[in-house]
Protein backbone atom coordinates (compact mmCIF):
# COMPACT_ATOMS: atom_id res chain seq x y z
CA UNK A 1 0.00 0.00 0.00
CA UNK A 2 1.61 3.20 -1.16
CA UNK A 3 -0.41 6.20 -0.09
CA UNK A 4 0.61 9.77 0.27
CA UNK A 5 0.87 11.45 3.63
CA UNK A 6 -2.46 13.22 3.22
CA UNK A 7 -4.20 9.91 2.57
CA UNK A 8 -2.59 8.40 5.63
CA UNK A 9 -3.95 11.17 7.84
CA UNK A 10 -7.22 11.18 5.83
CA UNK A 11 -7.00 14.83 4.92
CA UNK A 12 -7.50 17.00 1.89
CA UNK A 13 -4.35 18.53 0.49
CA UNK A 14 -5.70 21.98 1.34
CA UNK A 15 -6.23 21.13 5.02
CA UNK A 16 -5.33 23.86 7.48
CA UNK A 17 -2.41 23.28 9.84
CA UNK A 18 -4.66 22.84 12.89
CA UNK A 19 -6.71 20.23 11.04
CA UNK A 20 -3.55 18.26 10.47
CA UNK A 21 -2.81 18.25 14.18
CA UNK A 22 -6.36 17.17 15.04
CA UNK A 23 -6.26 14.42 12.43
CA UNK A 24 -2.92 13.24 13.76
CA UNK A 25 -4.14 13.12 17.33
CA UNK A 26 -7.24 11.20 16.33
CA UNK A 27 -5.25 8.77 14.21
CA UNK A 28 -2.83 8.25 17.05
CA UNK A 29 -5.56 7.39 19.56
CA UNK A 30 -7.16 5.10 17.00
CA UNK A 31 -4.13 2.97 16.28
CA UNK A 32 -2.33 2.95 19.61
CA UNK A 33 -3.45 1.17 22.72
CA UNK A 34 -6.58 -0.89 23.11
CA UNK A 35 -8.96 0.95 20.90
CA UNK A 36 -12.21 -1.03 20.59
CA UNK A 37 -12.63 0.30 17.06
CA UNK A 38 -9.72 -1.68 15.62
CA UNK A 39 -9.55 -4.97 17.42
CA UNK A 40 -11.51 -7.13 15.00
CA UNK A 41 -10.00 -5.44 11.96
CA UNK A 42 -6.29 -4.86 12.42
CA UNK A 43 -3.80 -7.07 14.21
CA UNK A 44 -1.34 -5.56 16.68
CA UNK A 45 1.40 -5.74 14.08
CA UNK A 46 -0.72 -3.96 11.45
CA UNK A 47 -1.72 -1.30 13.93
CA UNK A 48 1.93 -0.67 14.76
CA UNK A 49 2.80 -0.33 11.09
CA UNK A 50 -0.07 2.09 10.57
CA UNK A 51 1.06 4.05 13.60
CA UNK A 52 4.59 4.44 12.28
CA UNK A 53 3.19 5.62 8.92
CA UNK A 54 1.04 8.12 10.78
CA UNK A 55 4.02 9.42 12.76
CA UNK A 56 6.04 9.80 9.57
CA UNK A 57 3.21 11.59 7.81
CA UNK A 58 2.76 14.00 10.68
CA UNK A 59 6.47 14.74 11.01
CA UNK A 60 6.32 16.05 7.43
CA UNK A 61 2.86 17.63 7.29
CA UNK A 62 3.02 18.98 10.83
CA UNK A 63 6.03 21.06 9.91
CA UNK A 64 5.23 23.97 7.61
CA UNK A 65 8.57 23.99 5.83
CA UNK A 66 8.65 20.27 5.20
CA UNK A 67 5.00 20.35 4.16
CA UNK A 68 5.78 23.06 1.64
CA UNK A 69 8.49 20.98 0.02
CA UNK A 70 6.22 17.94 0.03
CA UNK A 71 3.33 19.90 -1.48
CA UNK A 72 5.50 21.26 -4.24
CA UNK A 73 6.58 17.77 -5.17
CA UNK A 74 3.21 16.11 -4.73
CA UNK A 75 1.01 18.71 -6.35
CA UNK A 76 3.49 20.02 -8.89
CA UNK A 77 2.86 19.74 -12.61
CA UNK A 78 5.63 17.35 -13.45
CA UNK A 79 5.47 13.64 -12.80
CA UNK A 80 7.34 12.89 -9.64
CA UNK A 81 9.28 9.83 -8.59
CA UNK A 82 7.83 8.00 -5.61
CA UNK A 83 11.31 8.10 -4.09
CA UNK A 84 11.14 11.88 -4.00
CA UNK A 85 8.11 11.73 -1.73
CA UNK A 86 9.63 9.66 1.02
CA UNK A 87 10.29 10.99 4.47
CA UNK A 88 14.06 10.89 4.04
CA UNK A 89 14.15 12.70 0.72
CA UNK A 90 11.94 15.51 2.04
CA UNK A 91 14.16 15.85 5.07
CA UNK A 92 17.26 16.01 2.88
CA UNK A 93 15.69 18.66 0.67
CA UNK A 94 14.96 20.78 3.70
CA UNK A 95 18.57 20.47 4.80
CA UNK A 96 19.64 21.85 1.43
CA UNK A 97 17.43 24.89 1.93
CA UNK A 98 18.54 25.58 5.45
CA UNK A 99 22.20 24.81 5.27
CA UNK A 100 23.64 25.19 8.69
CA UNK A 101 26.62 27.46 8.33
CA UNK A 102 29.48 25.20 9.23
CA UNK A 103 31.56 26.73 12.01
CA UNK A 104 35.21 25.92 11.65
CA UNK A 105 35.86 24.88 15.22
CA UNK A 106 39.25 23.45 14.42
CA UNK A 107 41.73 24.68 16.98
CA UNK A 108 44.15 27.19 15.55
CA UNK A 109 47.79 26.48 16.04
CA UNK A 110 49.91 28.75 18.15
CA UNK A 111 53.52 28.83 19.21
CA UNK A 112 53.83 27.54 22.73
CA UNK A 113 55.57 29.96 25.05
CA UNK A 114 56.48 28.34 28.39
CA UNK A 115 56.98 31.67 30.14
CA UNK A 116 53.54 32.91 29.17
CA UNK A 117 51.93 29.55 30.04
CA UNK A 118 53.35 29.94 33.53
CA UNK A 119 52.04 33.47 33.73
CA UNK A 120 48.56 32.20 32.79
CA UNK A 121 48.53 29.44 35.39
CA UNK A 122 49.78 31.84 38.06
CA UNK A 123 47.40 34.62 37.17
CA UNK A 124 45.07 35.31 40.11
CA UNK A 125 43.36 38.50 39.05
CA UNK A 126 41.90 38.35 35.58
CA UNK A 127 41.33 41.53 33.64
CA UNK A 128 40.14 42.32 30.14
CA UNK A 129 43.74 42.97 29.13
CA UNK A 130 44.84 39.53 30.30
CA UNK A 131 41.97 37.87 28.43
CA UNK A 132 43.01 39.76 25.30
CA UNK A 133 46.63 38.70 25.72
CA UNK A 134 45.68 35.04 26.09
CA UNK A 135 43.41 35.26 23.07
CA UNK A 136 46.14 36.82 20.94
CA UNK A 137 48.66 34.32 22.27
CA UNK A 138 46.34 31.47 21.20
CA UNK A 139 46.03 33.08 17.77
CA UNK A 140 42.25 33.49 17.82
CA UNK A 141 40.73 36.61 16.29
CA UNK A 142 37.73 38.31 17.89
CA UNK A 143 35.59 37.40 14.87
CA UNK A 144 36.54 33.76 15.08
CA UNK A 145 35.86 33.65 18.81
CA UNK A 146 32.52 35.33 18.27
CA UNK A 147 31.57 32.73 15.68
CA UNK A 148 32.50 29.83 17.92
CA UNK A 149 30.92 30.91 21.19
CA UNK A 150 28.06 32.79 19.51
CA UNK A 151 28.66 36.03 21.36
CA UNK A 152 28.64 39.30 19.48
CA UNK A 153 32.16 40.50 18.59
CA UNK A 154 31.23 43.92 19.93
CA UNK A 155 30.67 42.43 23.37
CA UNK A 156 33.89 40.47 23.27
CA UNK A 157 35.76 43.69 22.53
CA UNK A 158 33.89 45.46 25.30
CA UNK A 159 34.75 42.70 27.77
CA UNK A 160 38.40 42.96 26.84
CA UNK A 161 38.32 46.75 27.13
CA UNK A 162 36.16 46.49 30.28
CA UNK A 163 33.60 49.09 29.24
CA UNK A 164 30.43 48.21 31.17
CA UNK A 165 28.43 50.86 29.30
CA UNK A 166 28.70 48.77 26.17
CA UNK A 167 27.64 45.57 27.91
CA UNK A 168 24.38 44.07 29.16
CA UNK A 169 23.66 43.28 32.80
CA UNK A 170 26.58 41.73 34.76
CA UNK A 171 24.91 38.34 34.93
CA UNK A 172 25.15 38.11 31.12
CA UNK A 173 28.71 39.42 31.12
CA UNK A 174 29.66 36.64 33.50
CA UNK A 175 28.18 34.11 31.08
CA UNK A 176 30.17 35.58 28.20
CA UNK A 177 33.39 35.52 30.22
CA UNK A 178 32.80 31.86 31.09
CA UNK A 179 32.36 31.09 27.39
CA UNK A 180 35.48 33.00 26.43
CA UNK A 181 37.53 31.36 29.16
CA UNK A 182 36.35 27.91 28.20
CA UNK A 183 37.26 28.49 24.59
CA UNK A 184 40.69 29.76 25.58
CA UNK A 185 41.24 26.63 27.66
CA UNK A 186 41.24 28.44 31.02
CA UNK A 187 39.64 27.56 34.32
CA UNK A 188 36.38 29.27 33.51
CA UNK A 189 35.04 29.54 37.04
CA UNK A 190 38.19 31.10 38.48
CA UNK A 191 38.53 33.48 35.54
CA UNK A 192 34.89 34.58 35.72
CA UNK A 193 35.03 35.09 39.50
CA UNK A 194 38.09 37.26 39.43
CA UNK A 195 37.06 39.14 36.28
CA UNK A 196 33.67 39.98 37.72
CA UNK A 197 35.32 41.26 40.91
CA UNK A 198 37.32 43.85 39.00
CA UNK A 199 34.37 44.44 36.66
CA UNK A 200 32.23 45.38 39.64
CA UNK A 201 34.82 47.95 40.75
CA UNK A 202 34.90 49.61 37.33
CA UNK A 203 31.15 49.75 37.42
Amino acid at each position, binding site marked *: *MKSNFYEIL*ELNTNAAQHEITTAYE*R*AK*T*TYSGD*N*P*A*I*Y*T*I*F*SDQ*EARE*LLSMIEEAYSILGNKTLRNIYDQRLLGQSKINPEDLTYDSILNASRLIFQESKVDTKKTSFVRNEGFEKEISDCASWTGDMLKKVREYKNITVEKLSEIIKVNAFYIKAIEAVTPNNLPAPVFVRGYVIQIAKELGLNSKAVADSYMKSFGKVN
Partner: protein
Amino acid sequence: MELVNMLGSSETNKKNIWAIQSGKGGVGKTFVTSSLALTLSKLRYSVLVIDLDLSGANIHTALGLNPSHLNLRHYLEGAKDISQIIIPTSYPKLSYVQGIWDSWIPFNFNEFDEQKFIRDLRSLDFDYILIDFGVGSFEKYFNLYLECDEKILVSSPEPTSIEKNYRFIESYICQNLKSKSTPEAFGKLISTLRDFRHKSLDKPFSFKTYLKENEGLTLEPFNKLNREPIKLILNGIRSQSVADLGYSIKSVCNKYYGLHIEYVGFLEFDNSVWQSVKNREPVLISQPFTPVAGQFLNICKNLTEPEVLRAVI
Protein backbone atom coordinates in the same frame (compact mmCIF):
# COMPACT_ATOMS: atom_id res chain seq x y z
CA MET B 1 -31.12 36.19 1.95
CA GLU B 2 -28.91 33.24 2.77
CA LEU B 3 -31.65 31.63 4.80
CA VAL B 4 -34.20 31.86 2.01
CA ASN B 5 -31.80 30.22 -0.42
CA MET B 6 -31.02 27.46 2.00
CA LEU B 7 -34.63 26.62 2.73
CA GLY B 8 -35.41 26.73 -0.97
CA SER B 9 -32.72 24.27 -1.81
CA SER B 10 -33.65 21.84 0.94
CA GLU B 11 -37.11 21.59 -0.56
CA THR B 12 -35.95 21.04 -4.10
CA ASN B 13 -33.42 18.33 -3.41
CA LYS B 14 -35.04 15.01 -2.74
CA LYS B 15 -32.78 13.92 0.09
CA ASN B 16 -35.52 13.38 2.54
CA ILE B 17 -35.96 9.69 3.23
CA TRP B 18 -33.71 8.64 6.09
CA ALA B 19 -33.05 5.03 6.98
CA ILE B 20 -32.05 4.41 10.57
CA GLN B 21 -30.24 1.14 11.08
CA SER B 22 -27.85 -0.46 13.52
CA GLY B 23 -25.56 -3.44 13.42
CA LYS B 24 -26.66 -4.64 16.82
CA GLY B 25 -29.98 -4.50 18.63
CA GLY B 26 -30.59 -2.49 21.75
CA VAL B 27 -28.25 0.39 20.98
CA GLY B 28 -31.10 2.89 21.01
CA LYS B 29 -32.23 2.88 17.42
CA THR B 30 -35.87 3.50 18.25
CA PHE B 31 -34.96 6.21 20.72
CA VAL B 32 -32.73 7.91 18.15
CA THR B 33 -35.37 7.67 15.42
CA SER B 34 -38.15 9.11 17.56
CA SER B 35 -35.92 11.86 18.93
CA LEU B 36 -34.57 12.84 15.51
CA ALA B 37 -38.15 13.05 14.32
CA LEU B 38 -39.16 15.24 17.24
CA THR B 39 -36.13 17.49 16.76
CA LEU B 40 -36.85 17.89 13.05
CA SER B 41 -40.47 18.72 13.83
CA LYS B 42 -39.29 21.33 16.35
CA LEU B 43 -37.17 22.78 13.53
CA ARG B 44 -40.51 23.19 11.71
CA TYR B 45 -40.04 20.45 9.19
CA SER B 46 -42.97 18.16 8.62
CA VAL B 47 -41.92 14.66 9.57
CA LEU B 48 -43.24 11.15 9.10
CA VAL B 49 -41.84 8.24 11.11
CA ILE B 50 -42.28 4.74 9.76
CA ASP B 51 -41.74 1.79 12.03
CA LEU B 52 -40.32 -1.09 10.03
CA ASP B 53 -38.95 -2.98 12.99
CA LEU B 54 -40.07 -6.60 12.69
CA SER B 55 -38.71 -7.70 15.99
CA GLY B 56 -41.09 -5.43 17.82
CA ALA B 57 -42.59 -2.22 16.54
CA ASN B 58 -42.47 0.27 19.39
CA ILE B 59 -41.90 3.72 18.01
CA HIS B 60 -45.29 4.59 19.43
CA THR B 61 -44.02 3.83 22.95
CA ALA B 62 -40.95 5.99 22.42
CA LEU B 63 -43.22 8.78 21.25
CA GLY B 64 -45.56 8.25 24.19
CA LEU B 65 -48.53 7.25 22.06
CA ASN B 66 -51.00 4.41 22.24
CA PRO B 67 -50.63 1.82 19.51
CA SER B 68 -52.99 2.34 16.65
CA HIS B 69 -55.01 -0.51 15.18
CA LEU B 70 -54.26 0.95 11.74
CA ASN B 71 -50.83 -0.28 10.84
CA LEU B 72 -48.43 -1.15 8.07
CA ARG B 73 -50.09 -4.51 7.61
CA HIS B 74 -53.22 -2.83 6.22
CA TYR B 75 -51.10 -1.13 3.59
CA LEU B 76 -48.93 -4.14 2.79
CA GLU B 77 -51.95 -6.39 2.40
CA GLY B 78 -53.56 -3.84 0.12
CA ALA B 79 -56.48 -2.94 2.37
CA LYS B 80 -55.49 0.72 2.73
CA ASP B 81 -53.52 3.41 0.91
CA ILE B 82 -50.33 4.73 2.46
CA SER B 83 -51.98 8.07 3.17
CA GLN B 84 -54.77 6.31 5.10
CA ILE B 85 -52.48 4.68 7.63
CA ILE B 86 -50.60 7.86 8.55
CA ILE B 87 -51.54 8.79 12.08
CA PRO B 88 -51.13 12.38 13.23
CA THR B 89 -49.64 12.86 16.70
CA SER B 90 -50.18 15.48 19.34
CA TYR B 91 -46.80 16.99 18.42
CA PRO B 92 -46.98 19.62 15.70
CA LYS B 93 -45.84 18.52 12.22
CA LEU B 94 -45.11 14.97 13.32
CA SER B 95 -47.00 11.91 12.06
CA TYR B 96 -46.22 8.26 12.19
CA VAL B 97 -47.00 4.93 10.64
CA GLN B 98 -47.52 2.14 13.09
CA GLY B 99 -45.38 -0.93 12.46
CA ILE B 100 -46.81 -4.42 12.28
CA TRP B 101 -47.85 -4.63 15.85
CA ASP B 102 -49.94 -7.77 15.95
CA SER B 103 -47.89 -10.89 15.76
CA TRP B 104 -50.69 -13.39 15.29
CA ILE B 105 -50.04 -14.06 11.62
CA PRO B 106 -46.56 -13.32 10.25
CA PHE B 107 -46.55 -11.19 7.15
CA ASN B 108 -45.12 -12.79 4.05
CA PHE B 109 -42.39 -10.39 3.02
CA ASN B 110 -41.91 -12.00 -0.35
CA GLU B 111 -45.01 -10.11 -1.35
CA PHE B 112 -43.55 -6.82 -0.21
CA ASP B 113 -43.28 -4.53 -3.23
CA GLU B 114 -40.39 -2.28 -2.20
CA GLN B 115 -40.45 -0.21 -5.38
CA LYS B 116 -44.14 0.57 -4.96
CA PHE B 117 -43.54 1.42 -1.31
CA ILE B 118 -40.78 3.88 -2.09
CA ARG B 119 -42.84 5.44 -4.90
CA ASP B 120 -45.74 5.89 -2.50
CA LEU B 121 -43.42 7.43 0.08
CA ARG B 122 -42.04 9.90 -2.44
CA SER B 123 -45.54 10.97 -3.36
CA LEU B 124 -46.24 12.01 0.23
CA ASP B 125 -45.91 15.63 1.19
CA PHE B 126 -43.40 15.53 4.05
CA ASP B 127 -40.09 17.30 4.44
CA TYR B 128 -38.54 14.24 6.03
CA ILE B 129 -39.53 10.59 6.24
CA LEU B 130 -37.66 8.56 8.84
CA ILE B 131 -37.71 4.78 8.59
CA ASP B 132 -36.72 2.73 11.60
CA PHE B 133 -35.24 -0.50 10.20
CA GLY B 134 -35.18 -3.24 12.75
CA VAL B 135 -32.05 -5.30 13.24
CA GLY B 136 -31.90 -7.96 10.56
CA SER B 137 -34.59 -6.37 8.42
CA PHE B 138 -31.83 -4.78 6.34
CA GLU B 139 -31.35 -7.88 4.17
CA LYS B 140 -35.10 -8.31 3.84
CA TYR B 141 -35.66 -4.83 2.51
CA PHE B 142 -32.32 -4.25 0.92
CA ASN B 143 -33.74 -2.51 -2.15
CA LEU B 144 -35.79 -0.23 0.03
CA TYR B 145 -32.73 0.53 2.10
CA LEU B 146 -30.77 1.37 -1.05
CA GLU B 147 -33.43 3.80 -2.17
CA CYS B 148 -33.26 5.78 1.06
CA ASP B 149 -31.45 9.09 0.68
CA GLU B 150 -29.63 9.11 4.02
CA LYS B 151 -28.38 5.96 5.66
CA ILE B 152 -27.89 6.49 9.35
CA LEU B 153 -26.05 3.90 11.40
CA VAL B 154 -26.56 3.99 15.16
CA SER B 155 -23.98 2.36 17.36
CA SER B 156 -23.13 2.20 21.01
CA PRO B 157 -19.46 2.48 22.02
CA GLU B 158 -19.32 -1.13 23.24
CA PRO B 159 -16.95 -3.42 21.33
CA THR B 160 -19.80 -5.82 20.52
CA SER B 161 -21.75 -3.08 18.83
CA ILE B 162 -18.74 -1.70 16.97
CA GLU B 163 -17.83 -5.15 15.70
CA LYS B 164 -21.35 -5.67 14.40
CA ASN B 165 -21.15 -2.31 12.64
CA TYR B 166 -18.19 -3.57 10.65
CA ARG B 167 -20.07 -6.75 9.77
CA PHE B 168 -22.98 -4.58 8.70
CA ILE B 169 -20.75 -2.40 6.54
CA GLU B 170 -19.12 -5.43 4.93
CA SER B 171 -22.48 -6.93 4.14
CA TYR B 172 -23.67 -3.58 2.83
CA ILE B 173 -20.69 -3.25 0.49
CA CYS B 174 -21.00 -6.82 -0.75
CA GLN B 175 -24.75 -6.55 -1.32
CA ASN B 176 -24.10 -3.44 -3.36
CA LEU B 177 -21.42 -5.11 -5.42
CA LYS B 178 -23.39 -8.31 -5.94
CA SER B 179 -26.11 -6.76 -8.05
CA LYS B 180 -23.58 -5.08 -10.35
CA SER B 181 -21.12 -7.90 -10.95
CA THR B 182 -21.08 -11.28 -12.67
CA PRO B 183 -21.78 -14.22 -10.34
CA GLU B 184 -18.33 -15.79 -10.97
CA ALA B 185 -16.47 -12.57 -10.22
CA PHE B 186 -18.55 -12.00 -7.12
CA GLY B 187 -17.92 -15.54 -5.92
CA LYS B 188 -14.20 -14.97 -6.39
CA LEU B 189 -14.38 -11.75 -4.42
CA ILE B 190 -16.09 -13.53 -1.54
CA SER B 191 -13.50 -16.30 -1.47
CA THR B 192 -10.71 -13.70 -1.53
CA LEU B 193 -12.34 -11.98 1.40
CA ARG B 194 -12.54 -15.29 3.21
CA ASP B 195 -8.83 -15.92 2.61
CA PHE B 196 -8.08 -12.49 3.88
CA ARG B 197 -10.08 -13.05 7.02
CA HIS B 198 -8.07 -16.19 7.70
CA LYS B 199 -4.88 -14.19 7.22
CA SER B 200 -3.68 -16.35 4.36
CA LEU B 201 -3.12 -13.33 2.13
CA ASP B 202 0.17 -11.59 2.65
CA LYS B 203 -0.79 -8.11 1.49
CA PRO B 204 -3.60 -6.00 2.89
CA PHE B 205 -6.89 -6.24 1.07
CA SER B 206 -8.43 -3.20 -0.52
CA PHE B 207 -11.81 -3.22 -2.18
CA LYS B 208 -10.79 -0.40 -4.45
CA THR B 209 -7.69 -2.06 -5.91
CA TYR B 210 -9.42 -5.42 -6.09
CA LEU B 211 -12.32 -3.97 -8.03
CA LYS B 212 -9.97 -2.21 -10.42
CA GLU B 213 -7.81 -5.23 -11.05
CA ASN B 214 -10.43 -7.92 -11.47
CA GLU B 215 -12.78 -8.41 -14.37
CA GLY B 216 -16.51 -8.74 -14.04
CA LEU B 217 -16.59 -6.22 -11.21
CA THR B 218 -17.23 -2.53 -11.50
CA LEU B 219 -15.98 0.25 -9.33
CA GLU B 220 -19.08 2.35 -9.80
CA PRO B 221 -21.29 0.96 -6.99
CA PHE B 222 -18.37 1.36 -4.63
CA ASN B 223 -17.76 4.94 -5.71
CA LYS B 224 -21.44 5.61 -5.19
CA LEU B 225 -21.16 4.43 -1.60
CA ASN B 226 -18.36 6.92 -1.11
CA ARG B 227 -20.32 9.74 -2.67
CA GLU B 228 -23.29 9.04 -0.40
CA PRO B 229 -21.57 8.07 2.82
CA ILE B 230 -23.26 6.26 5.68
CA LYS B 231 -23.79 8.63 8.61
CA LEU B 232 -22.66 7.35 11.99
CA ILE B 233 -24.21 8.30 15.33
CA LEU B 234 -22.77 7.07 18.62
CA ASN B 235 -25.28 6.67 21.42
CA GLY B 236 -24.66 6.32 25.16
CA ILE B 237 -21.35 8.17 25.39
CA ARG B 238 -19.93 8.59 28.89
CA SER B 239 -16.76 10.59 28.17
CA GLN B 240 -15.11 12.68 25.48
CA SER B 241 -12.51 10.04 24.72
CA VAL B 242 -15.32 7.61 24.03
CA ALA B 243 -16.97 10.14 21.75
CA ASP B 244 -13.76 10.17 19.69
CA LEU B 245 -14.37 6.50 18.92
CA GLY B 246 -16.55 7.75 16.10
CA TYR B 247 -13.49 9.18 14.39
CA SER B 248 -11.64 5.94 14.99
CA ILE B 249 -14.42 3.93 13.34
CA LYS B 250 -14.42 6.35 10.46
CA SER B 251 -10.67 6.01 10.06
CA VAL B 252 -10.79 2.21 10.18
CA CYS B 253 -13.49 2.13 7.48
CA ASN B 254 -11.34 4.41 5.39
CA LYS B 255 -8.11 2.48 5.82
CA TYR B 256 -9.53 -1.03 5.74
CA TYR B 257 -12.48 -0.89 3.38
CA GLY B 258 -11.58 2.29 1.53
CA LEU B 259 -15.09 3.34 2.45
CA HIS B 260 -15.85 6.88 3.45
CA ILE B 261 -18.36 7.23 6.27
CA GLU B 262 -19.34 10.37 8.07
CA TYR B 263 -19.49 10.81 11.83
CA VAL B 264 -22.38 13.19 12.40
CA GLY B 265 -22.44 13.27 16.17
CA PHE B 266 -22.77 11.55 19.48
CA LEU B 267 -25.37 11.34 22.22
CA GLU B 268 -24.24 11.40 25.80
CA PHE B 269 -25.51 8.98 28.36
CA ASP B 270 -28.25 10.91 30.07
CA ASN B 271 -30.24 9.83 33.10
CA SER B 272 -33.21 11.84 31.97
CA VAL B 273 -33.56 9.42 29.04
CA TRP B 274 -34.37 6.29 30.99
CA GLN B 275 -36.51 8.26 33.40
CA SER B 276 -38.58 9.56 30.51
CA VAL B 277 -38.75 6.17 28.84
CA LYS B 278 -40.06 4.74 32.08
CA ASN B 279 -42.82 7.33 32.07
CA ARG B 280 -43.48 6.62 28.38
CA GLU B 281 -42.78 10.22 27.49
CA PRO B 282 -40.30 11.46 24.88
CA VAL B 283 -37.33 12.97 26.67
CA LEU B 284 -37.27 15.92 24.28
CA ILE B 285 -40.79 16.81 25.42
CA SER B 286 -40.56 16.09 29.14
CA GLN B 287 -37.05 17.53 29.57
CA PRO B 288 -36.41 19.76 26.56
CA PHE B 289 -33.26 21.31 28.03
CA THR B 290 -31.38 18.14 28.82
CA PRO B 291 -27.94 17.93 27.11
CA VAL B 292 -29.12 15.17 24.81
CA ALA B 293 -31.67 17.54 23.28
CA GLY B 294 -28.84 19.83 22.21
CA GLN B 295 -26.91 16.91 20.81
CA PHE B 296 -29.91 15.85 18.73
CA LEU B 297 -30.22 19.38 17.45
CA ASN B 298 -26.57 19.29 16.51
CA ILE B 299 -26.98 16.01 14.63
CA CYS B 300 -30.08 17.25 12.81
CA LYS B 301 -28.24 20.37 11.71
CA ASN B 302 -25.34 18.24 10.54
CA LEU B 303 -27.70 16.13 8.48
CA THR B 304 -29.98 18.82 7.11
CA GLU B 305 -27.58 21.68 6.48
CA PRO B 306 -24.06 20.28 6.39
CA GLU B 307 -22.70 23.08 4.20
CA VAL B 308 -23.87 25.74 6.65
CA LEU B 309 -22.03 24.10 9.52
CA ARG B 310 -18.81 23.71 7.61
CA ALA B 311 -18.78 27.43 6.98
CA VAL B 312 -18.95 28.09 10.71
CA ILE B 313 -15.84 26.00 11.40
